[in-house]
């Protein structure tokens, strides 16, 4: 993986070198139109493939350049660990926003992962083929529903439910634990954001985990059942260990989706700056919401736009690292199973 990352970093030079090589090794001259077409078609297609590789670099460099003014004014630790966000006074601390992102993502995953994995197990091992045939298009459709629609659902259903039922009840039973104590009467909270996100990433996690479990050869299941194991024992001791790397990758994929999600979270999470969340009923202000909410006014205050672009850069780096890891694992698994 390391060498591949390096290769991406050097890609513009590499691609140029490859093109040169192509030119010099193909000494034979083209006489026919077909030959010219073939050669120029190849070059044209090749330049199209340079685009994505270059784009990764360009996005990174462009955001870095825009972030530079604030990196020169403040140290990185000051930015990442600073707790105060007052753009008018030149205070740009990302820490509460980073924590907000982490809290919401963590709540979403704690809710989503067990339910999604059990659902995937049900679909892959227990259910009838007709159930799968029915659920697949539904999962595809749900994975495609815009985040703003999930946000509307969150405001209509989740926020009132948290406000009227979940927060008072949990506060009464478990209020002594600070994680569940509630002094936020609105319902716009980390828990609401987490529930909406959990439902949003569910179709992705379920369908990827299902695909991965299907790649476990049926002969292995049959062998396990033949020596007298129950179906659950087969799942527990045969299917799960085989599918584990892929399941981890599915979860990481969901995690990176959840971290970068903007609109749905923005609509239900409360967006209160300068406050470190202590309980799941506190409001939070994740990084994507920060960028989306403030782009309008960022040009008028010095360093403000640099700070917001810095937030975008931090978000991108974190999400991309998770995503690439999961993509590499998944690709290997699906390739090995011959798909």
């Amino acid at each position, binding site marked *: 993986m390391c060498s591949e990352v390096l*290769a*991406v970093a050097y890609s513009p030079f*590499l*691609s140029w070198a490859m093109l040169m090589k192509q030119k010099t090794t193909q000494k034979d001259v083209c006489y026919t139109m077909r030959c010219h*077409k*073939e050669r120029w078609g190849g070059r044209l*297609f*090749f330049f*199209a*493939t340079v*685009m*994505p590789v270059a784009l*990764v670099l360009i996005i990174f460099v*462009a955001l870095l350049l*825009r972030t530079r003014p604030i990196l020169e004014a403040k140290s990185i630790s000051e930015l990442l660990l600073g707790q105060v966000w007052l753009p008018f006074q030149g205070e740009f601390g990302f820490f509460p926003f980073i924590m907000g992102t982490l809290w919401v993502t963590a709540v979403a995953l704690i809710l989503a992962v067990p339910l*999604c994995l*059990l*659902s995937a*197990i*049900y679909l892959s091992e*227990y259910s009838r083929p007709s159930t799968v045939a029915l659920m697949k298009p539904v999962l595809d*459709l*749900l994975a*495609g*529903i*815009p*985040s*703003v*629609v*999930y*946000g509307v*659902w969150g405001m*209509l*259903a989740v926020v009132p439910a948290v406000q009227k039922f979940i927060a008072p009840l949990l506060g009464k039973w478990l209020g002594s634990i600070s994680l569940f104590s509630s002094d936020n009467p609105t319902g716009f909270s980390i828990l609401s954001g987490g529930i909406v996100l959990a*439902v949003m990433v*569910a179709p992705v996690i*379920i369908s990827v985990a299902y695909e991965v479990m299907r790649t476990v050869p049926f002969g292995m299941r049959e062998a396990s059942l033949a020596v007298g194991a*129950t*179906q*659950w*024992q087969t*799942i527990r001791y045969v299917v799960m260990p085989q599918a584990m790397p892929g399941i981890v990758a599915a979860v990481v994929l969901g995690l990176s989706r959840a971290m*970068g*999600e*903007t*609109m749905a979270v923005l609509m239900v999470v409360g967006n209160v700056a300068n406050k470190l969340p202590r309980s799941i009923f506190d409001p939070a202000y994740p990084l*994507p919401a920060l*960028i*989306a909410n403030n*782009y309008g006014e960022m040009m008028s205050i010095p360093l403000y736009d640099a700070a*917001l*672009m810095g937030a*975008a850069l931090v*978000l*991108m780096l974190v*999400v*991309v690292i*998770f995503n*690439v890891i999961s*993509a590499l694992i998944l690709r290997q698994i699906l390739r090995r199973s011959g798909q």
Partner: protein
Amino acid sequence: MKKRLNRQTLEEAIFKGLAGGAFLIMAAALFFILVTVLVKGLPALNWQMLTQVPTAGYYVGKEGGILNAILGSLYLAAGGTLLALLLSLPIALYLEVYARGTRWANMVRLSMDVLWGIPSIVYGAFGFTLMLALGMRASLLGGIITLALVELPIMTRAMDEVIRLIPFELKEVSYALGSTRLETAMKVVFRQMLPGIVTAMLLAFGRGIGDAASVLFTAGYTDRVPTSLLRPVASLPLAVFFQLGTPYPEVQQRAYAAALILTLIIMFVSLGSRWIAGRLSQNVIK
């Protein structure tokens, strides 16, 4: 022995119940979303919403509709999809026909994974930076370019998956007849992956039309129907978002209706892509 068997069957029953229960909960939650949007949106939906642009007092509850946002979203998503198609088709063909199994192909796929993972808000911020550098203002063109960037990895990945299913023998036959790589790519591989291309386009179109975070910076918002590439343009997700943010219940009602319209478009696209793929794949050699 008897006891042990009982424990096993109990364990089996518990976990089967748990898995089934989890599946029911997830299915119910996902179904609940569609029902909520339908129940809230349907009463507010009327002909006027679909055919008129907002009037002066629209955002305090007066007459008007969201034709500007519907058309704007269609323009944005269609433009973005076409632009992304122009790039992703040569990329997919090159990876399969010209650079099959090379290091460069692996690198391009890796960078596609990176691009796929970048959140759309980051694309929005990048598009905004790009437009500042070029001296452009929020416009249809800016939105189209940013959406094309968002859709490019989705489309390429979808095509890449289809193109791999094409039997290798088919290409061997084409080469054996003396055709060049370009001719094989355009006349054999392209036709074989046509259903895949249509599916990929519709998938990307659906993703593009629902994406709010990237057009927030780059396309702006306006009450007029777009007439030029260089003017700002409204979009459905932002229409939902802005109308929901107003304190007037009538306007919020319209946000629900707009969300319903958006969901219906997505459903239509999703079902349509299945239908078209089914129709077209009759001619594909497997």
